[in-house]
């Protein structure tokens, strides 16, 4: 306990320096902004801002990028409630009841409960990270290549199980990601794979290119297609929720926080699935489920708390194991690697100021977000009326500069544009690109660890089954696969996503 307090003191010492406070404020403001603006999500934004962080100290860069992620969870609810368009994917379910509340003239309480619920969830999740990350890292320090390989198999399989929408499409996207990850020079044999003799491809495709293309570019293109006027309900009279509102929602907030914290830790989990799961849970537990969809405040409180808790707790596997549980974490992982930090359990021991500084900054950031999102709500509402013809060219231009700066090569810009097109096709085909990014990151790592484990065991494949941690994870994989095959689970999965 004493140790925990010391760690947190160290963390706050880092997070509260003026420069880091500034980066945190910048991050959460940008996060709120892109959360509010429909069409561009946290993943695209983080990918876009990544090249900017090359010359920023590692801890400041991570504080800012993390701020964008959970900041977007706050901002996203605003748009869902006022416009009935999800500001970002994790706020989809908030539209259902949030917008109905706004139509009934109760936009203020809906916004307030979303922000307060998120704040509560954020605080709890911060404590959960501080409590659970060190023991998990302790275990992870014993990991060798065999354990990492099995862990990554588990990550990829659960990414498929927990992915949004069709299972078949998720698997296809993961496989495509694996294939894209193969591009470049193989570490073990030096063989060049899928490079077509183009020197720019010898070191593989930069994941910034893929993330920016598939997310930022593609999101802009698909949004251009969306016709119809945005009707913004700007009539926010009072922010204060009534006593009845609080009474109705506090349990939902607590449940959402618990669910989100749990689902965030799971590989493949994160904010999006947390909010869906929370909505389903609240509806199931409600005395009168028919109120849902007609302005039930629990339908806002639960998912909004859950998505923020999920967003933050998904940092746990990333920080302690170096394994991304979702696509945003994959990009965060990339940001760390760009800074020369090898993600893994040694980060906590070797760079305690970075680890605890980041965690402490989350609490600071959440506090900032409450202020940014409640008293300043008027600014965000006005932002909702910014015309896309100004917004989108700016986003694209920014992406191009970022892509070019990766290696001062126009090839990367063209490649990003190519992935943008691909992303648009995926959107048309209803294929979620997030599993692709996970496959892209995890695939080459998995191959590396597989070959390394095999080399170290001198070609004996039983090494994956004789080491207990590795075996446990492979058993979990088998269990997950069985679950997918079981028809009952499949139906349930469908239900969760089709609410």
């Amino acid at each position, binding site marked *: 306990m004493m140790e925990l307090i010391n760690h947190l003191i160290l963390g706050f010492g880092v997070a509260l320096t003026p420069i880091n406070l500034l980066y945190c404020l910048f991050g959460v403001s940008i996060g709120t902004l892109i959360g509010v603006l429909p069409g561009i999500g946290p993943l695209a934004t983080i990918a876009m801002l990544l090249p900017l962080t090359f010359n920023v100290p590692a801890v400041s860069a991570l504080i800012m990028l993390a701020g964008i992620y959970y900041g977007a969870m706050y901002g996203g609810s605003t748009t869902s409630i006022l416009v009935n368009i999800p500001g970002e994917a994790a706020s989809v379910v908030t539209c259902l009841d949030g917008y109905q509340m706004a139509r009934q003239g109760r936009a203020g309480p809906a916004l307030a409960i979303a922000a307060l619920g998120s704040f509560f969830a954020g605080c709890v999740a911060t404590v959960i990270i501080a409590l659970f990350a060190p023991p998990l890292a302790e275990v992870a320090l014993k990991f060798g290549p065999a354990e990492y390989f099995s862990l990554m198999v588990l990550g990829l399989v659960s990414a498929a199980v927990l992915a949004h929408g069709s299972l078949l499409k998720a698997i296809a996207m993961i496989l495509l990601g694996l294939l894209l990850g193969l591009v470049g020079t193989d*570490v073990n044999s030096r063989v060049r794979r899928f490079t077509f003799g183009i020197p720019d491809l010898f070191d593989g495709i930069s994941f910034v290119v893929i993330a920016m293309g598939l997310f930022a570019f593609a999101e802009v293109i698909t949004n251009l297609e969306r016709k119809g006027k945005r009707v913004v309900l700007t009539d926010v009279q009072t922010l204060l929720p009534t006593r009845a509102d609080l009474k109705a929602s506090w349990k939902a907030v607590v449940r959402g926080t618990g669910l989100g914290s749990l689902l965030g830790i799971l590989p493949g989990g994160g904010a999006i699935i947390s909010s869906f799961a929370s909505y389903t849970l609240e509806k199931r537990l409600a005395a009168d489920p028919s109120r849902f969809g007609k302005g039930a405040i629990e339908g806002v409180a639960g998912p909004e708390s859950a998505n923020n808790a999920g967003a933050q707790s998904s940092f746990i596997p990333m920080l302690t194991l170096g394994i991304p549980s979702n696509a945003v974490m994959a990009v965060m992982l990339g940001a760390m690697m760009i800074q020369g930090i090898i993600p893994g359990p040694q980060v906590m021991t070797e760079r305690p100021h970075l680890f605890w500084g980041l965690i402490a900054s989350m609490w600071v950031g959440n506090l900032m977000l409450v202020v940014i999102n409640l008293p300043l709500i008027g600014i965000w509402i006005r932002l909702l009326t910014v015309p896309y013809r100004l917004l989108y060219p700016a986003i694209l231009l920014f992406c191009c500069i970022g892509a070019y700066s990766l290696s001062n090569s126009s090839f990367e810009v063209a490649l990003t544009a190519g992935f943008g097109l691909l992303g648009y096709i995926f959107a048309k085909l209803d294929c979620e690109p997030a599993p692709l990014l996970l496959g892209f990151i995890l695939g080459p790592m998995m191959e590396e660890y597989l070959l390394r484990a095999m080399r*170290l065991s001198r070609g004996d494949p039983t090494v994956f089954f004789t080491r207990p941690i590795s075996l446990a994870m492979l058993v979990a994989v088998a269990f997950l696969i069985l679950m997918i095959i079981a028809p009952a689970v499949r139906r349930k999965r469908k239900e969760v996503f089709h609410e």
Partner: protein
Amino acid sequence: MNRLPDVAVIFSRFKPILSRRRCLVNMKLVLRLASMVLAAVVLTSAAGDALAQTYPTKYIRVFVPAPAGGGTDILARIIGQKFTEKWGQQVVIENRGGASGTIAAEMAAKSAPDGYNLFMLYSGILTINPSLLKKLPYDPIKDFTPVAIFVQVPNILVVHPSVPAKSVKELIALAKSKPGQLNCASSGIGVSNYMCMELFKSMTGVDWVHIPYKGGAPAMIDLLGGQVQVMFNNLVELVPHIKAGKLRALAVATPKRISAMPDLPTIAEAGVPGYENLLWYGMVAPAGTPKEIINKLSAEILKIQQMPDVKERLNTMGAEPIDFTPEQMDAYIKAEMAKWAKVIKEAGIQPE
């Protein structure tokens, strides 16, 4: 301003045209050029000195075969900053990483040889790539003129403390008594510490299993965890762990002992006579760059590398100054190319 350098500048501008293979044979042009060349030749000796005196008159571009922020880039920026301080001209760093440095090398090879294009590089681009890569888009000898080698980054042979060997000889004996049991990590096939290992293998005949990693940092994690037991790696990454007793340093791969660890023997001293692997950083210019400019640059770089503040920065990077004049560098590169070609062939590595 003196008129002479202008003639020289004109001369140097025509040089690429003269050397272009598929140049249209146009009598008029030939005549004009001939008179130009004649005039230039007459003025060459005088113009050369004057050229070197006034050089540089505009910004200098330095190609760097690595992204911003890495060791090669930092060295280029240190040199660039000192050039600017000395001559008042900007130095533009052009970072083009990737493909084992071949992208930047090709760009540098094709740039104008006027003294305003330089290429900051590390040894492998000239000495190892030719034996390792099938289609090299540049010729290490014909396309470049050496300027200076000015920094070395020593590789140190370390073992995990679980390995009983306390010296290089003991390690060789251990590896021979247990063939195929030790694991030796590298930061990837073709990089300097991998070459250290292959050279060691070829000179001592030890039999251990090579485990390649993507870069030094992940290799260090497994080395510290004892998953692999042996590695050659650079000073910066190793020193904190050697000091903490988590790794045992056996010897250094450089030809001479290093000032950072004067008690550490060289591998040659410790039982493998003739062993040396120098990871060096240096500067070349595209072939045809005026000799006077090369000499001026070379002298300046070797001066910069001795400045106290530069030495201090090199120290924090785990690097040490060394000097090679253009002539020494030329001979050294040729010798090294032959040496590594042999090692790579003996190791049975096919060019890719």
